[in-house]
């Protein structure tokens, strides 16, 4: 099992959800996060004064999938979240040791 963690632009969330639903992904966890990468922060202007916003708002999506589907999911996120402009975000994939469905106690792939 793999944990796919994608940090994307907030307004791309719905496009990503649609793309993943088409792939048959049945669940995901979404959080509003802040951070910076190569994009650094951004500048906002209020009453003529510049404010440096060091942490830019992003959305983090977390999906756990079996090994076969993980690659396709990563590709779908990349395609649907891309604007080709700086700040599109990153995708991380890590191994998952165990998964448990709380209601039934199922474990492993069948818990997904």
């Amino acid at each position, binding site marked *: 099992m793999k944990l796919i963690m994608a940090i994307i632009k907030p307004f791309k969330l719905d496009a990503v959800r649609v793309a993943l639903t088409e792939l048959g992904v049945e669940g995901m966890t979404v959080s509003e996060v802040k951070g910076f990468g190569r994009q650094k922060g951004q500048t906002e202007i*209020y009453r*003529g004064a510049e*404010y440096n916003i060091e942490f830019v708002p992003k959305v983090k999506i977390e999906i756990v999938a079996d090994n076969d589907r993980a690659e396709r999911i990563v590709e779908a996120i990349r395609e649907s979240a891309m604007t080709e402009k700086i700040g599109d975000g990153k995708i991380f994939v890590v191994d998952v040791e165990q998964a448990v469905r709380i209601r039934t106690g199922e474990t492993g792939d069948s818990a997904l």
Partner: protein
Amino acid sequence: MSRILHGAGALMLASVFLLVSEPAHAQELNGANTAWILTSTALVLFMTLPGLALFYGGLVQAKNVLSVLMQCFAIACMASILWFAVVYSLAFDEGSAYVGGLGKMFMSGVSFDSLSGDIPESVFFMFQMTFAIITPALIVGAYVERIKFSSVMMISALWLIFVYGPVCHWVWGGGWLSEMGVMDFAGGLVVHATAGTSALVIVKFLGTRQGFPTHLQPPHSPGMTMIGAAMLWVGWFGFNAGSALAADGGAGMAMAVTHISAATASLVWVLIEWVKFGKPSLVGIVTGMVAGLATITPASGFVGPIGGFCIGLLGGFVCYWAVGFVKDKWKLDDSLDVFAVHGVGGILGTLAAAIFVADTFGGAGLADGMTMSSQLGIQAIGVASTVAWSAFATIIIVLITKAILGLRTSEDEMAEGLDLSYHGERDYNF
């Protein structure tokens, strides 16, 4: 000026300063005027609660929004009680040329039947009270996000007694400036110049917000600011048109020029931003609105529509420039631009009133024996004396408060936010 001539049409005011000496107590109650001033009183209270509170609240960080709302609300309550106890008397009781007497303390002598001009004195008392509420609340914008709550209350209380009461007496209570013939229809001097000047003095002693000037946090809710600004605009009709103290053509024209100036200055401000930064901002357009309203305030009952438009243009340009000047050149963290918008606007409008009152510009006309330059001289004396007294008295008030309570919160309290560290609550629980 208008306060002394209750009932006289505001259009007449400018040309009949000599009427000041004529006794006003012989008049009978006028129901129409009374109804309008009752309404205006409600409008002006609405400017502070919640208008100004929301306007300022949206401009601070999310962790400090309650402290700002709280300061505005608490000042409103305290100013009301002080007004009742002593400040109304200092402003409007007969006294010396410099301050009223103590004969009207605790509304002494104000009964169901007492008249002030041709409206009940209780109504006049309440209408004027709403001005005494908003003026110290305007200063809140200067010291947000870093001041102790107790110091806010102490400074505001002393300020009402030693700055607002006397200056109100000078200009509207029959004091020396009104004897001289100064024109301040609705508070360019009494409200905006006093608040703006004192704001600068307080921040000089208080110091800056964390991160000023390069690493400040942006306003947490410009939407909240717009809601508050819109309430200020509506409430300002009571502020300016109510200052005619009558339901007449003077009040109507005051309302018209107020609106024209506000709309004009809003557009000026946002156009400057659009040209300079490429984007017209909401915070910009509503700040321009306040600048336009503050600038027209002293002139509102005296000038005509063209005057209102010109004053709106002036207010927009000059106040925009002043915002940058105070922060960049003086390096003073007048956080929400109380001086640049209210102080500069009030002073500018007080001076401009002398020009646009002239018949040439469609105004009500200069008083008998006055020329534009002689009136301008009187206006300048009004500005200089108001600014000087506000600055001097506020320095003393701040030094006393600093010695007894201190002014500035600890750095930790500031980092945590004043909402939690001073009021034990937060606005946004998710």
